[in-house]
Each structure stands twice: as C-alpha cells, then as structure tokens.
C-alpha cells in the first residue's frame, strides 16, 4: 500500500496531510475488503439464516431472495457493486431488518455515541483531574489511593460490572430506570442529531431530556470506570514526565507560583500525549459498548453488530465495520496531524 499521488504543493505540511488522508481512505477500503472476505468465508449460508424453514425449502423463493440481494452474482462483482454504491452513500439493504443499512445505522450510531461521548467527557474530567492530583502529590497518600482506584478501574470486567450495576441500582434499589433509551411512556424527541439528550434540549422538552439522561446514567458510568482508570494512570505519568523537564524547572526557579507553572506549562505540554490517549480510549469505548448494550438492551451499534453478525447479515456487518473503521481512522488522523503540527520531525520521517 503506497501513498496516492501527491499534490504538487511545496508545503510539506500540506503534503503530509494529503498523504495521511490518502492512506486513511485506503485503510477504510481495506476494512471493507477484509469484512467482505471474512463474512463470505463463514460456512453458514445467509439464505438459511434469513429465510424460514418452509421458504428455504422452496427453490423459487430461494432464487428470488438471492437475486434480490445480489447474492447470485460472483463475489468480486458483489464487492465491486458494494464499492460503487458506497460512493453514492448507499450501504445496501439489511437482510435482517429489510431497511437500508444507512437508515439502520443512523439510528444505532447516535445511540452508541451518546453513551460513548458521555463516558469520554466524564472520563476526561475525572481522569485528567485525578491524574494531575496524583502526579503533584506523588508519593503521598492521595497518590497511592488514586493508584489503587485506577488499577481497580482497569481491572473490572465491563460486562460483569454492567450486570451487577443493573441488578443493584435498577432492580434492588430502584434508583435507576430500566433498560432502553427512554421510558416507554416517553416519545422520542424530533430527530435532529439522533442524540436524544441534544434533540430534547433543542426542542425544549425538559422532561424527555431528564428521562434520557436518567437512562444514560448507568451504562455511561459503567463504561466510564475503565477509561477513568486508564486516563488517571496516563495523565499522572505524562505530567510527571513534564515536571521533570528543564523548562518547568527553570520556570519554578524563576519563582513562578506553583499553580501557574502547573496550568501554563505542565498541563499544556502534557496535553498532546493525553489527547492521543483520549482518542484511542474513545475507540476502545466504542467496542466496549457491545458488552454493555447487551445488558441494558441499548439499541446501539454494538447490539446492531451482534444481531447482524449472528444473522450473517452481510450488508449490516459491512456497515458496522465501515463506521467503526471510519471513526478509528478519523481519530488517528486527527491525532497524527496534531503531532505533525506540533512536532515537525514527525513529518520528515
């Protein structure tokens, strides 16, 4: 895989960006290819998985089904058709829901993002805060306590925690609502972003907003624990590393107050590596939701992927693979570009 043709611009930064974007596009295509090949390698037959017993025994019905989904075509042609349709923003029709995959995903992706964004924001606020505290109070009691908390955080099996949390808070204590995104009596707010909280605010439906937040609480907190552990650990060591550097020492030596040094010099310098980890953690969160969505009956991407995969719903599986791939690639691109902008040496290599 080599970089695509580069623009003739003399600006090395632009060239670098163009190269990275090109590689990213190739990467996404690679993801679709791998998904396609893998899904077709599975021994199961999608017709068997999606048609009824009696219908699957009738050759004319099977033939009609195959031709409807283009399964009667040679595999390379199927993949080619997929790519061409992809250029037009068409991801095909799900064999499982009989709807367009785009429509399915535009409902499922925001549901997952709503948990994942909530979890990452909370994690940043808590994790970075705790990490700075731990670094500054290095060797003190607070440091040890935080270390314990973060180590436990990254050690808890998410699926188990989700189950226990649901059992305790929703079932036994009844302080959290049941499963799903909204209470049954509540209607979804008008669809703008697909994020129920945002949509409810946009249309001024305060009750719906409250309900959506209440439903988000448990799954978000469960996912947050792991990421908080991760970010606390990482922030601590990133800050420690910066604290050790000459410019911080000299700032201190100049007699600048501790807080100023911390905020203006240390945190700023530690920010880029922390952001990198945030980006990666966000990707991890997205795949972590599969386990959590199972427990909370959350109609998100994880549930959709699981359903699609277990029905050998090729367009559905491809769609999820594509979305996850794009999200990962975009995050990486942004992180790489940030590095590129900040540290010119990266571009040369």
């Amino acid at each position, binding site marked *: 895989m080599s970089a695509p043709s580069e623009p003739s611009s003399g600006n090395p930064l632009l060239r670098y960006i163009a190269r990275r974007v090109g590689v990213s596009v190739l990467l996404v295509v690679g993801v679709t290819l791998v998904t396609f090949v893998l899904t077709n390698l599975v021994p199961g037959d999608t017709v*068997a998985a999606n048609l*009824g017993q009696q219908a699957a025994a009738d050759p004319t019905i099977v033939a009609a089904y195959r031709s409807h989904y283009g399964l009667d075509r040679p595999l390379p042609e199927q993949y080619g058709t997929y790519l061409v349709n992809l250029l037009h923003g068409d991801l095909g029709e799900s064999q499982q*829901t*009989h709807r367009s995959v785009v429509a399915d995903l535009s409902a499922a992706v925001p549901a997952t993002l709503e948990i994942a964004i909530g979890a990452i924001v909370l994690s940043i606020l808590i994790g970075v805060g705790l990490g700075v505290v731990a670094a500054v109070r290095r060797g003190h009691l607070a440091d040890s306590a935080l270390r314990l908390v973060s180590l436990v955080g990254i050690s808890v099996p998410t699926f188990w925690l989700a189950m226990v949390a649901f059992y305790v808070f*929703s079932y036994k204590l009844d302080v959290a609502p049941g499963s799903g995104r909204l209470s*049954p009596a*509540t209607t979804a707010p008008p669809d703008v972003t697909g994020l129920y909280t945002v949509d409810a605010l946009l249309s001024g439906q305060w009750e719906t907003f409250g309900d959506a937040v209440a439903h988000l609480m448990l799954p978000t907190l469960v996912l947050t624990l792991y990421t908080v552990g991760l970010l606390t650990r990482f922030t601590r060591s990133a800050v420690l590393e910066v604290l050790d550097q000459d410019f911080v020492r000299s700032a201190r030596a100049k007699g600048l107050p501790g807080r100023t040094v911390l905020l203006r010099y240390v945190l700023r310098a530690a920010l880029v590596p922390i952001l990198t980890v945030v980006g990666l953690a966000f990707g991890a969160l997205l795949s972590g939701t599969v386990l959590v969505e199972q427990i909370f009956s959350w*109609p998100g991407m994880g549930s959709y992927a699981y359903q699609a995969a277990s029905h050998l719903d090729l367009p559905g599986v491809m769609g999820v693979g594509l979305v996850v791939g794009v999200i990962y690639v975009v995050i990486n691109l942004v992180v790489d570009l940030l590095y590129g902008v900040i540290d010119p040496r990266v571009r040369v290599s």
Partner: protein
Amino acid sequence: MTGPTSIRGRGRTVALAAAATLVAVGVAACGSGSSGGGGAGGGTLVVDSSFDLKTIDPGREYELTGQMLTKGMYETLLTFANNDLTKPVGDLATGYTLSPDAKTLTLPLAQGRVFSDGSPITADDVVFSLQRLIGMKGNPSFLLDGVTVAKKDASTVVLTSAKPNPALPFILPNPALSVVNSKVVTANGGTTDDKDGAEKYLNGASAGSGPYVLKSLDVASQAVLTTNPKYNGPDKPGYGTVVIRNVKAATQVLNVQKGDSQVALDLSGDQVKGLDTGKVTVTSGPSAYTIFLLLNQGTAVSPATSNPQYVSAVKKAIDYSGLLGVAGTGAVQPAGIIPSLIAGTLPAADAPKQDVAGAKTALAASGMSAQKPKLAYPSDLTLNGLSFQTLAEKLQSQLAAAGIAIDLAPAPVATELDNYRNGKEQMGLWYWGPDFPDPSNYLAFAPGGLIGKRANWPATASPDIDKVATTAGSTADTAQRDALYQQFQQGLNASGPFIPLVQPPSNIVTATTVTGATYNPIWTVDVGTIGAK
C-alpha cells in the same frame, strides 16, 4: 429467538391460559409513568418481548414478533376464538364451508366492516391480499401453496386447492394471511407478484382493519400502536396506546416487577418462580413447541447414530423428567413429535421412558460404545427461557450416566442451521413449532419429509411409517385422521430417528391490573383482547 427458526410456530398454552389469567391478588403495583389502570381508550400498555422482527408487512412477516404485531393491526378471514385451536371460526368471513373433497373452501364475508381509513372491506381486498402473499414469494407464501383465490361475488370468496387440503381452515387464521386495504397498498407500490414494493410503506403505517393502528416502528427497539378509531369489530381494545419493546428476558423480569411494563412474554420457568405474585400474575403451561433430538441415519455422516441399537440406547438413556426439571414450571414431556394442544397428539402413557439397564444392553449390542458422536445445537438460541445450551449440557450428563459418550458442538444458529438443513449433523438438538395447528404440519418428520431428509432418513428406509404418513395426510375424516397420526407417532417412537424431549413452558407475566393476555401458539398474544381492570 432468531428469525430463521422462529418461523416455526409459536407454542403457547391454551388450556391453562384461560383459567389462570384472572388470578388477581393484592394491589397492583404500577408506577413509573405508565398507566396500569386506564379504562377503554386510555392509558398505555407496555409489552416486553424479545424481538425477532424483520418486517410487519403481513404478506412478508413470518416471525414471532411480526405475527403478534400484525394480529393487533389486521384481521384475517378466520380466527381461533378464545384460543380454541381445534375450531376455526369467522372473523372477516362469517364462517366457512369446505367441499366434501376438501378442495374448495367457500367464505362469505361479514358485512359493514371497515378499514382504518373508513373504507369498506370488499371481496377485492381479500383476493388482492391473498394473491399478494402468494405472488411475492416471501417467507409465508408456502402457507397457500397450490391454492388459488377467486371472488365469487361481492360478498363471497372461494379458495380452491389443487390437492385435498383439509388443513386450510386451520391455516387461514395465521396473521400472515391478513386482509390489507388494497387501494392504499396499491397506491404505495403494492402488487401481487414479486415486483411488490409496498413493504417499506407497510413498515411505517398499517393498512388493516384491526383494533389498533401503527404509530411508529423501529424493528430493533419498539413498535407503538394506537387505537383504531374506525374499528367496528368484536374486540374491545383496552388501551389508547400499546408499546411493544424489545427487551431481553433477564430485563423483562425486572421491568414487569417494577411496573415498568405490564406484560412480559419471554420469562423462563426459573425466572417466574421468584416473582412476587402480589405484584404480578403468572400464567404457565406447556407451549406448542417440540424440542427434539435428531439422530442422523446416514452411515457416512455418523456410524454410531445410524445404528438402530444405538438409537434405542439413546432413547432409553435419557431421563425425561430430569429434562423437565431444567425446563422449569409448565414444561411437559411430549408423548410423540406432535405436542399436546394439537389434534392427533399421543396419550402421555405412550411417551418414551428411561431405562438405564436397557440402554446399556442396547449400547453393548450396537457395538458403538467407543464412538463419541457430536451433538450439534444452536448455542445462542433460547426458547421461552429454556436455553439449548443448558439442555445440551443436561443431555450430555444424562447420556454419560448410561455409558454413552458424546461431544458438544455448539454454534451460532446462523451457521448451525446450514449443517442442519444439509443433513450434516450427527446428533442435533432442535425444535419445531406448528406453522398452523394441524397434525399434517408434522408430516415433516416422516421418512423423506422436510426434517426426515435432514436425518438422512429417506422414505425407503421405513416404508411402514411412510405409508401411514401418506394415508394420514390425505384423510379428511377427523377421527380417522387422529388415529392415523397417533399410529404415525408410535412408529416414530419405536424406530424413528427423532426423540421428542420436552415442550418448553410458556410463561406470561402480567401486572395484576391486566386482563385477557392469553397465549396463542400462532400469534403469542392478541393485544386487541388485552384490557385493564
């Protein structure tokens, strides 16, 4: 539950349901914003169910959830009143007449009935609906295989079958055969061949005459129905809004106890045991599903299970009552492949029995005791709360006690179905539910039948059983039929490659304020008859 297998029937009890629905104890505990006690036309009913939904286009749907939703929004020519599966009665037709040769079914239509847009239901609507089902070649099309539909006059429809078809009146109540508003459906791309394009429209709006109409549908999470203001049929819908949500069984337990939902449909026998009967009403009974063990007769596929002595050893080694213990309250052992609740079922005394000593003798006689066949089963399938995983583990341990060693070979339904359908499983653990409540549906288990072939069991392998099956299929006289189907099953029990294991329970759990939620093997529960106290 997943699409492919749920195609099979929807076994739920009939007998116990009616008796137990009205057990009212204590004070209802409904809260959390959903109304428990709305009178007619008011309030919201929340039904929790594990979805296997693909579509609610009546001509295309053939999944558990689709049948339930369609039943609430559409009507069929005939139906089963009070869930009496032995007698189809009029719905949109006033009744039926079957010709003596069982080939012509005449259906006079009820007068004055209207669709949800107020337009009258005509014979043309009926003909269009059934022809569309046949012509689209979808999952339920097989129900009317070899049947032609014609309008005799403005108020009569005639169904003609190529072969004698005594089961047809029992097929017509299937919600897949619902009557749709032909003008609306045609205007939205509907045709009576495979060019039909109305599915998308019908997944966003209903075009029927049932007690409810569709407000919104998300196949992955929930369907919302509201009362049909133009409805002039016999049901008395008790709620203004019905929300049917996709919820896993474990969560359903919690929701219904908290009052978050009023009906839970997928609880296991174990789950209902712990429920507080002061808060909820539990109705348990056997479902119409038969879970069975398949023993492949192909010598190349499986040397052990194709040996008759080995089959006999397995039949005798199983502790059937032990399986019921795992299946939980309400489960029963089917005496033959046709479950209780359906005509032609065997008396309980004819059921296979455990005989460990006999099993050991037969195993020794088979000379296959060193074999270790693979038991394939859908590991992600749960039927009314009974997981195939659990059942397979139980079987393995029971067989081991009689010296029969087997390996478990779990696989996701989607991949395992392929092996099952292609007859590649040495031993298979699967289930069958009635497409329609008629014993002829179980001829699939005859040698050379749909499932018989999957066990590599051709008609030539057992001419006796084949002959009985063929005769039973073409006999119209009820008493004679029942006797023949019993004889068929006795043959299967004696020498067939299938071992009926358990009818899993059907458990319906409702808030104590809810009435009329009784199980039906075809459509699970009719939301049109659910009311509030």
